[in-house]
Protein backbone atom coordinates (compact mmCIF):
# COMPACT_ATOMS: atom_id res chain seq x y z
CA UNK A 1 0.00 0.00 0.00
CA UNK A 2 1.19 3.52 -0.72
CA UNK A 3 1.54 5.30 2.61
CA UNK A 4 0.83 9.00 2.45
CA UNK A 5 2.64 11.16 4.96
CA UNK A 6 -0.56 12.91 5.96
CA UNK A 7 -4.12 12.45 4.83
CA UNK A 8 -7.10 14.75 5.26
CA UNK A 9 -9.19 13.74 8.26
CA UNK A 10 -12.33 11.66 8.08
CA UNK A 11 -15.30 13.86 8.94
CA UNK A 12 -18.06 11.44 8.09
CA UNK A 13 -18.88 7.76 8.38
CA UNK A 14 -21.47 5.93 6.34
CA UNK A 15 -22.54 3.17 8.66
CA UNK A 16 -23.98 0.12 6.95
CA UNK A 17 -26.16 -0.93 9.83
CA UNK A 18 -28.13 -3.38 7.69
CA UNK A 19 -26.80 -5.30 4.71
CA UNK A 20 -30.18 -6.29 3.26
CA UNK A 21 -33.04 -4.25 1.83
CA UNK A 22 -36.81 -4.56 1.76
CA UNK A 23 -36.99 -3.16 -1.76
CA UNK A 24 -35.58 -4.54 -4.99
CA UNK A 25 -35.00 -1.40 -7.09
CA UNK A 26 -33.67 -2.33 -10.51
CA UNK A 27 -30.99 0.39 -10.55
CA UNK A 28 -29.57 -0.31 -7.07
CA UNK A 29 -25.78 -0.17 -6.89
CA UNK A 30 -25.68 -2.48 -3.89
CA UNK A 31 -27.48 -5.47 -5.31
CA UNK A 32 -28.00 -5.07 -9.05
CA UNK A 33 -24.56 -4.22 -10.43
CA UNK A 34 -22.78 -7.52 -10.08
CA UNK A 35 -21.00 -6.86 -6.80
CA UNK A 36 -21.84 -9.70 -4.42
CA UNK A 37 -19.88 -8.59 -1.36
CA UNK A 38 -23.08 -7.76 0.55
CA UNK A 39 -23.90 -11.49 0.72
CA UNK A 40 -20.84 -12.07 2.91
CA UNK A 41 -21.92 -9.46 5.44
CA UNK A 42 -23.91 -10.13 8.61
CA UNK A 43 -27.43 -8.80 8.37
CA UNK A 44 -26.85 -6.08 10.96
CA UNK A 45 -24.02 -4.14 12.56
CA UNK A 46 -23.50 -5.26 16.17
CA UNK A 47 -23.11 -2.92 19.13
CA UNK A 48 -19.56 -4.25 19.52
CA UNK A 49 -18.58 -3.12 16.02
CA UNK A 50 -20.26 0.23 16.67
CA UNK A 51 -18.46 0.65 20.01
CA UNK A 52 -15.03 -0.03 18.52
CA UNK A 53 -15.79 2.27 15.58
CA UNK A 54 -17.00 5.07 17.86
CA UNK A 55 -13.94 4.75 20.08
CA UNK A 56 -11.59 5.06 17.11
CA UNK A 57 -13.53 7.96 15.64
CA UNK A 58 -13.42 9.69 19.01
CA UNK A 59 -9.65 9.37 19.04
CA UNK A 60 -9.42 10.54 15.41
CA UNK A 61 -11.67 13.55 16.07
CA UNK A 62 -9.58 14.59 19.06
CA UNK A 63 -6.28 14.21 17.21
CA UNK A 64 -7.52 16.27 14.26
CA UNK A 65 -9.54 18.78 16.28
CA UNK A 66 -12.69 18.18 14.27
CA UNK A 67 -15.46 20.69 15.02
CA UNK A 68 -18.13 18.22 13.90
CA UNK A 69 -18.49 14.62 12.83
CA UNK A 70 -21.37 13.11 10.89
CA UNK A 71 -22.63 9.56 10.99
CA UNK A 72 -25.02 8.46 8.27
CA UNK A 73 -27.11 5.36 8.79
CA UNK A 74 -27.31 3.48 5.55
CA UNK A 75 -27.69 -0.03 4.20
CA UNK A 76 -29.30 -1.92 2.58
CA UNK A 77 -32.24 -0.38 4.31
CA UNK A 78 -31.09 1.07 7.63
CA UNK A 79 -34.51 0.94 9.29
CA UNK A 80 -34.36 -2.86 9.08
CA UNK A 81 -31.78 -2.57 11.86
CA UNK A 82 -34.46 -1.14 14.16
CA UNK A 83 -34.61 2.08 16.13
CA UNK A 84 -33.13 0.57 19.29
CA UNK A 85 -29.94 -0.48 17.50
CA UNK A 86 -29.67 2.90 15.78
CA UNK A 87 -30.06 4.73 19.09
CA UNK A 88 -27.46 2.47 20.70
CA UNK A 89 -24.96 3.19 17.96
CA UNK A 90 -25.66 6.91 18.18
CA UNK A 91 -25.11 6.85 21.94
CA UNK A 92 -21.76 5.13 21.44
CA UNK A 93 -20.58 7.97 19.20
CA UNK A 94 -21.97 10.63 21.51
CA UNK A 95 -20.04 9.20 24.44
CA UNK A 96 -16.78 8.77 22.52
CA UNK A 97 -16.55 12.08 20.65
CA UNK A 98 -14.60 14.82 22.41
CA UNK A 99 -16.61 17.71 23.83
CA UNK A 100 -15.56 20.10 21.06
CA UNK A 101 -16.80 17.79 18.27
CA UNK A 102 -20.50 18.09 17.44
CA UNK A 103 -22.21 14.88 16.47
CA UNK A 104 -24.43 15.13 13.40
CA UNK A 105 -26.72 12.20 12.65
CA UNK A 106 -28.32 11.41 9.29
CA UNK A 107 -30.00 8.52 7.55
CA UNK A 108 -30.88 7.64 3.97
CA UNK A 109 -33.93 5.38 3.76
CA UNK A 110 -36.55 4.13 1.35
CA UNK A 111 -39.09 5.07 4.02
CA UNK A 112 -41.12 1.85 3.98
CA UNK A 113 -40.75 1.38 7.73
CA UNK A 114 -40.85 5.00 8.73
CA UNK A 115 -43.91 5.97 10.73
CA UNK A 116 -44.58 8.19 13.75
CA UNK A 117 -43.68 5.45 16.20
CA UNK A 118 -40.41 4.66 14.46
CA UNK A 119 -39.45 8.31 14.16
CA UNK A 120 -40.16 8.89 17.84
CA UNK A 121 -37.80 6.03 18.71
CA UNK A 122 -34.93 7.28 16.54
CA UNK A 123 -32.30 9.77 17.76
CA UNK A 124 -34.05 13.06 18.37
CA UNK A 125 -32.30 15.27 15.84
CA UNK A 126 -31.67 12.71 13.12
CA UNK A 127 -31.88 14.13 9.60
CA UNK A 128 -33.61 11.72 7.25
CA UNK A 129 -33.25 11.66 3.49
CA UNK A 130 -35.76 9.63 1.52
CA UNK A 131 -35.17 7.99 -1.85
CA UNK A 132 -38.18 8.85 -3.99
CA UNK A 133 -38.46 9.11 -7.77
CA UNK A 134 -41.44 11.43 -7.89
CA UNK A 135 -44.65 10.54 -9.63
CA UNK A 136 -46.46 7.23 -9.09
CA UNK A 137 -45.60 5.97 -12.56
CA UNK A 138 -41.91 6.75 -12.09
CA UNK A 139 -41.75 4.93 -8.77
CA UNK A 140 -43.64 1.94 -10.15
CA UNK A 141 -41.07 1.57 -12.91
CA UNK A 142 -38.04 1.04 -10.68
CA UNK A 143 -38.70 1.13 -6.94
CA UNK A 144 -40.38 -2.19 -6.31
CA UNK A 145 -40.88 -4.57 -3.44
CA UNK A 146 -39.37 -8.06 -3.80
CA UNK A 147 -42.81 -9.25 -4.94
CA UNK A 148 -42.88 -6.60 -7.67
CA UNK A 149 -45.33 -4.10 -6.15
CA UNK A 150 -44.67 -0.37 -6.33
CA UNK A 151 -43.32 1.24 -3.15
CA UNK A 152 -45.03 4.54 -3.99
CA UNK A 153 -47.74 4.55 -1.31
CA UNK A 154 -45.32 3.41 1.41
CA UNK A 155 -42.95 6.23 0.56
CA UNK A 156 -45.74 8.80 0.48
CA UNK A 157 -46.73 7.77 4.02
CA UNK A 158 -43.15 8.23 5.21
CA UNK A 159 -42.91 11.65 3.58
CA UNK A 160 -46.17 12.69 5.22
CA UNK A 161 -44.65 11.83 8.61
CA UNK A 162 -41.52 13.85 7.85
CA UNK A 163 -43.51 16.87 6.72
CA UNK A 164 -44.90 16.96 10.26
CA UNK A 165 -41.34 16.92 11.63
CA UNK A 166 -39.36 19.35 9.44
CA UNK A 167 -36.40 19.25 11.81
CA UNK A 168 -35.92 15.59 10.87
CA UNK A 169 -36.67 16.00 7.16
CA UNK A 170 -33.40 16.03 5.25
CA UNK A 171 -34.77 15.88 1.73
CA UNK A 172 -35.53 13.58 -1.17
CA UNK A 173 -33.32 12.00 -3.81
CA UNK A 174 -34.63 10.95 -7.22
CA UNK A 175 -32.84 8.96 -9.89
CA UNK A 176 -33.42 10.45 -13.33
CA UNK A 177 -35.36 8.39 -15.82
CA UNK A 178 -35.63 10.09 -19.20
CA UNK A 179 -39.03 8.46 -19.67
CA UNK A 180 -40.36 10.84 -17.01
CA UNK A 181 -41.26 14.40 -17.86
CA UNK A 182 -38.74 16.69 -16.10
CA UNK A 183 -41.19 19.29 -14.79
CA UNK A 184 -43.77 16.69 -13.77
CA UNK A 185 -41.02 15.03 -11.76
CA UNK A 186 -39.94 18.31 -10.19
CA UNK A 187 -43.50 19.19 -9.21
CA UNK A 188 -44.01 15.72 -7.73
CA UNK A 189 -40.96 16.22 -5.51
CA UNK A 190 -41.98 19.77 -4.63
CA UNK A 191 -45.35 18.49 -3.48
CA UNK A 192 -43.56 16.60 -0.71
CA UNK A 193 -42.16 19.91 0.61
CA UNK A 194 -38.55 18.87 1.17
CA UNK A 195 -36.20 21.72 2.03
CA UNK A 196 -33.72 20.12 -0.34
CA UNK A 197 -33.80 17.53 -3.08
CA UNK A 198 -31.59 16.26 -5.83
CA UNK A 199 -31.67 14.43 -9.13
CA UNK A 200 -29.16 11.66 -9.67
CA UNK A 201 -27.65 10.37 -12.86
CA UNK A 202 -28.04 6.59 -13.14
CA UNK A 203 -24.74 4.90 -12.37
CA UNK A 204 -22.65 4.38 -15.49
CA UNK A 205 -19.06 3.99 -16.59
CA UNK A 206 -17.34 4.83 -19.86
CA UNK A 207 -17.68 1.18 -20.86
CA UNK A 208 -21.40 1.54 -21.39
CA UNK A 209 -23.24 3.76 -23.83
CA UNK A 210 -22.28 7.41 -23.44
CA UNK A 211 -25.08 9.87 -22.93
CA UNK A 212 -25.44 12.35 -25.80
CA UNK A 213 -26.51 15.11 -23.43
CA UNK A 214 -30.12 14.01 -22.93
CA UNK A 215 -29.73 14.04 -19.14
CA UNK A 216 -28.30 17.54 -19.29
CA UNK A 217 -31.23 18.74 -21.38
CA UNK A 218 -33.65 17.04 -18.98
CA UNK A 219 -32.04 18.78 -16.01
CA UNK A 220 -31.99 22.12 -17.85
CA UNK A 221 -35.77 21.87 -18.20
CA UNK A 222 -36.01 21.31 -14.45
CA UNK A 223 -33.71 24.28 -13.84
CA UNK A 224 -35.90 26.54 -15.98
CA UNK A 225 -38.99 25.58 -14.01
CA UNK A 226 -37.20 25.76 -10.68
CA UNK A 227 -34.89 28.74 -10.34
CA UNK A 228 -37.54 31.46 -10.25
CA UNK A 229 -40.31 29.25 -8.87
CA UNK A 230 -42.32 31.31 -6.37
CA UNK A 231 -44.16 28.36 -4.91
CA UNK A 232 -43.28 28.44 -1.21
CA UNK A 233 -42.72 24.66 -1.31
CA UNK A 234 -39.90 25.00 -3.86
CA UNK A 235 -36.83 23.17 -2.51
CA UNK A 236 -33.15 23.84 -2.95
CA UNK A 237 -31.84 21.42 -5.56
CA UNK A 238 -28.38 20.33 -4.50
CA UNK A 239 -26.83 19.85 -7.96
CA UNK A 240 -28.01 23.29 -9.08
CA UNK A 241 -26.83 24.79 -5.80
CA UNK A 242 -23.30 23.48 -6.38
CA UNK A 243 -23.18 24.56 -10.03
CA UNK A 244 -24.50 28.06 -9.26
CA UNK A 245 -22.04 28.56 -6.43
CA UNK A 246 -19.08 27.27 -8.39
CA UNK A 247 -20.00 29.46 -11.37
CA UNK A 248 -19.91 32.41 -8.94
CA UNK A 249 -16.45 31.40 -7.79
CA UNK A 250 -17.57 30.01 -4.42
CA UNK A 251 -15.39 27.08 -3.43
CA UNK A 252 -18.23 24.74 -2.52
CA UNK A 253 -17.05 21.13 -2.38
CA UNK A 254 -18.92 17.87 -2.71
CA UNK A 255 -18.13 14.38 -3.84
CA UNK A 256 -19.82 14.39 -7.22
CA UNK A 257 -19.02 17.56 -9.11
CA UNK A 258 -16.11 19.96 -8.89
CA UNK A 259 -12.87 19.33 -6.99
CA UNK A 260 -12.96 16.73 -4.21
CA UNK A 261 -13.94 17.60 -0.63
CA UNK A 262 -11.19 18.56 1.78
CA UNK A 263 -12.32 15.99 4.32
CA UNK A 264 -12.84 12.30 3.75
CA UNK A 265 -15.86 10.06 3.98
CA UNK A 266 -15.53 6.39 4.94
CA UNK A 267 -17.94 3.47 4.67
CA UNK A 268 -18.07 0.91 7.49
CA UNK A 269 -19.79 -2.39 6.71
CA UNK A 270 -21.72 -4.39 9.34
CA UNK A 271 -18.67 -6.57 10.07
CA UNK A 272 -16.37 -3.54 10.50
CA UNK A 273 -14.82 -3.66 7.02
CA UNK A 274 -13.78 -0.23 5.80
CA UNK A 275 -14.81 0.57 2.25
CA UNK A 276 -14.56 3.27 -0.37
CA UNK A 277 -17.47 4.87 -2.23
CA UNK A 278 -20.46 2.57 -2.58
CA UNK A 279 -20.90 3.69 -6.16
CA UNK A 280 -17.61 2.04 -7.10
CA UNK A 281 -19.55 -1.21 -7.24
CA UNK A 282 -20.42 -0.14 -10.78
CA UNK A 283 -16.73 -0.54 -11.61
CA UNK A 284 -16.60 -4.19 -10.61
CA UNK A 285 -16.90 -6.82 -7.92
CA UNK A 286 -14.99 -5.74 -4.81
CA UNK A 287 -13.96 -2.34 -6.23
CA UNK A 288 -15.09 -0.58 -3.06
CA UNK A 289 -13.09 -2.90 -0.78
CA UNK A 290 -9.93 -1.84 1.05
CA UNK A 291 -9.08 -5.11 2.79
CA UNK A 292 -8.95 -3.17 6.06
CA UNK A 293 -11.19 -3.26 9.11
CA UNK A 294 -11.99 -0.67 11.74
CA UNK A 295 -11.68 -3.52 14.27
CA UNK A 296 -7.97 -3.98 13.57
CA UNK A 297 -6.77 -0.65 12.12
CA UNK A 298 -6.95 2.95 13.20
CA UNK A 299 -8.86 5.51 11.15
CA UNK A 300 -5.58 7.20 10.21
CA UNK A 301 -4.18 3.90 8.96
CA UNK A 302 -7.27 3.15 6.88
CA UNK A 303 -7.49 6.59 5.31
CA UNK A 304 -4.00 6.18 3.86
CA UNK A 305 -5.38 3.59 1.46
CA UNK A 306 -4.89 5.18 -1.99
CA UNK A 307 -8.52 4.57 -2.90
CA UNK A 308 -9.58 7.40 -0.56
CA UNK A 309 -7.85 9.91 -2.81
CA UNK A 310 -9.91 10.70 -5.89
CA UNK A 311 -8.09 9.92 -9.15
CA UNK A 312 -6.88 12.91 -11.13
CA UNK A 313 -9.17 14.05 -13.97
CA UNK A 314 -7.96 13.38 -17.51
CA UNK A 315 -6.09 15.94 -19.63
CA UNK A 316 -9.12 16.58 -21.87
CA UNK A 317 -11.13 17.53 -18.77
CA UNK A 318 -8.46 19.86 -17.49
CA UNK A 319 -8.51 21.76 -20.81
CA UNK A 320 -12.32 22.01 -20.89
CA UNK A 321 -13.92 25.44 -20.30
CA UNK A 322 -16.34 24.05 -17.69
CA UNK A 323 -13.68 22.13 -15.75
CA UNK A 324 -13.65 24.70 -12.96
CA UNK A 325 -17.26 23.81 -12.25
CA UNK A 326 -17.52 20.11 -13.01
CA UNK A 327 -13.97 19.00 -12.13
CA UNK A 328 -14.42 15.95 -14.39
CA UNK A 329 -17.66 14.89 -12.72
CA UNK A 330 -18.33 11.99 -10.39
CA UNK A 331 -15.28 9.78 -10.70
CA UNK A 332 -16.98 6.36 -10.89
CA UNK A 333 -18.59 7.68 -14.09
CA UNK A 334 -15.10 8.19 -15.55
CA UNK A 335 -14.03 4.55 -15.30
CA UNK A 336 -13.26 2.27 -18.24
CA UNK A 337 -11.58 -1.11 -18.27
CA UNK A 338 -8.95 0.12 -20.72
CA UNK A 339 -8.04 3.49 -19.15
CA UNK A 340 -9.08 3.25 -15.52
CA UNK A 341 -10.29 6.71 -14.49
CA UNK A 342 -8.35 8.56 -17.19
CA UNK A 343 -11.48 9.49 -19.16
CA UNK A 344 -14.12 12.20 -19.27
CA UNK A 345 -17.34 11.28 -17.48
CA UNK A 346 -19.95 9.07 -19.12
CA UNK A 347 -22.12 12.17 -18.52
CA UNK A 348 -19.62 14.67 -19.90
CA UNK A 349 -21.99 16.00 -22.58
CA UNK A 350 -24.75 16.37 -19.98
CA UNK A 351 -22.63 18.28 -17.49
CA UNK A 352 -21.26 20.57 -20.19
CA UNK A 353 -24.75 21.34 -21.46
CA UNK A 354 -26.25 21.90 -18.04
CA UNK A 355 -23.43 24.11 -16.75
CA UNK A 356 -23.50 26.23 -19.92
CA UNK A 357 -27.27 26.51 -19.68
CA UNK A 358 -27.19 27.64 -16.05
CA UNK A 359 -24.40 30.11 -16.82
CA UNK A 360 -26.50 31.66 -19.61
CA UNK A 361 -29.52 31.96 -17.33
CA UNK A 362 -27.51 33.57 -14.54
CA UNK A 363 -25.93 35.99 -17.01
CA UNK A 364 -29.38 36.96 -18.28
CA UNK A 365 -30.42 37.69 -14.70
CA UNK A 366 -27.28 39.69 -14.01
CA UNK A 367 -26.15 37.28 -11.31
CA UNK A 368 -22.86 36.53 -13.09
Amino acid sequence: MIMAATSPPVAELILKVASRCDLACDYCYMYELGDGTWQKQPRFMTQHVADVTASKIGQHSAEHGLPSFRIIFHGGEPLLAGAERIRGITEAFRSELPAQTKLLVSMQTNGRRLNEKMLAALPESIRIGVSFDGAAQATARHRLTPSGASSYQDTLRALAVLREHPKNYGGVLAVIDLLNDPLTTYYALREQVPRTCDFLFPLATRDGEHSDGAYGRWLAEVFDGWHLDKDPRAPVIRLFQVIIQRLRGVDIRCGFIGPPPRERSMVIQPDGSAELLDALRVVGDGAAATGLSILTSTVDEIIQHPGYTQPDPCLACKKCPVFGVCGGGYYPNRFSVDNGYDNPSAYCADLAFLISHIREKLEELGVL
Partner: protein
Amino acid sequence: MAATDTNTPLARVLAMDNDTTLLAGVYLFNSVNDGYDAADAEG
Protein backbone atom coordinates in the same frame (compact mmCIF):
# COMPACT_ATOMS: atom_id res chain seq x y z
CA MET B 1 -34.32 41.77 -10.91
CA ALA B 2 -36.23 38.56 -10.43
CA ALA B 3 -33.27 36.70 -8.91
CA THR B 4 -33.27 39.03 -5.94
CA ASP B 5 -36.82 38.04 -5.03
CA THR B 6 -36.19 36.23 -1.77
CA ASN B 7 -39.05 33.84 -2.46
CA THR B 8 -37.22 32.03 -5.24
CA PRO B 9 -34.92 29.03 -4.81
CA LEU B 10 -32.23 30.84 -6.79
CA ALA B 11 -32.29 33.73 -4.33
CA ARG B 12 -32.02 31.29 -1.43
CA VAL B 13 -29.00 29.61 -3.01
CA LEU B 14 -27.35 32.97 -3.65
CA ALA B 15 -27.86 33.89 0.00
CA MET B 16 -26.18 30.74 1.35
CA ASP B 17 -22.86 30.80 3.13
CA ASN B 18 -19.73 30.45 1.10
CA ASP B 19 -17.12 27.73 0.98
CA THR B 20 -19.23 24.85 2.14
CA THR B 21 -18.35 21.18 1.97
CA LEU B 22 -21.07 18.67 1.24
CA LEU B 23 -19.74 15.22 1.95
CA ALA B 24 -21.27 11.76 1.60
CA GLY B 25 -21.40 11.58 -2.16
CA VAL B 26 -24.26 11.89 -4.47
CA TYR B 27 -26.18 8.77 -3.47
CA LEU B 28 -26.75 9.90 0.08
CA PHE B 29 -28.39 12.98 1.32
CA ASN B 30 -26.93 14.69 4.27
CA SER B 31 -26.28 18.34 4.48
CA VAL B 32 -27.25 21.20 2.37
CA ASN B 33 -26.04 24.31 4.07
CA ASP B 34 -29.41 25.40 5.37
CA GLY B 35 -28.51 26.26 8.92
CA TYR B 36 -30.22 23.29 10.54
CA ASP B 37 -27.06 21.39 11.35
CA ALA B 38 -25.61 24.11 13.49
CA ALA B 39 -28.82 24.47 15.44
CA ASP B 40 -29.60 20.79 15.85
CA ALA B 41 -26.29 19.10 16.38
CA GLU B 42 -26.04 16.23 18.85
CA GLY B 43 -28.19 13.41 17.57
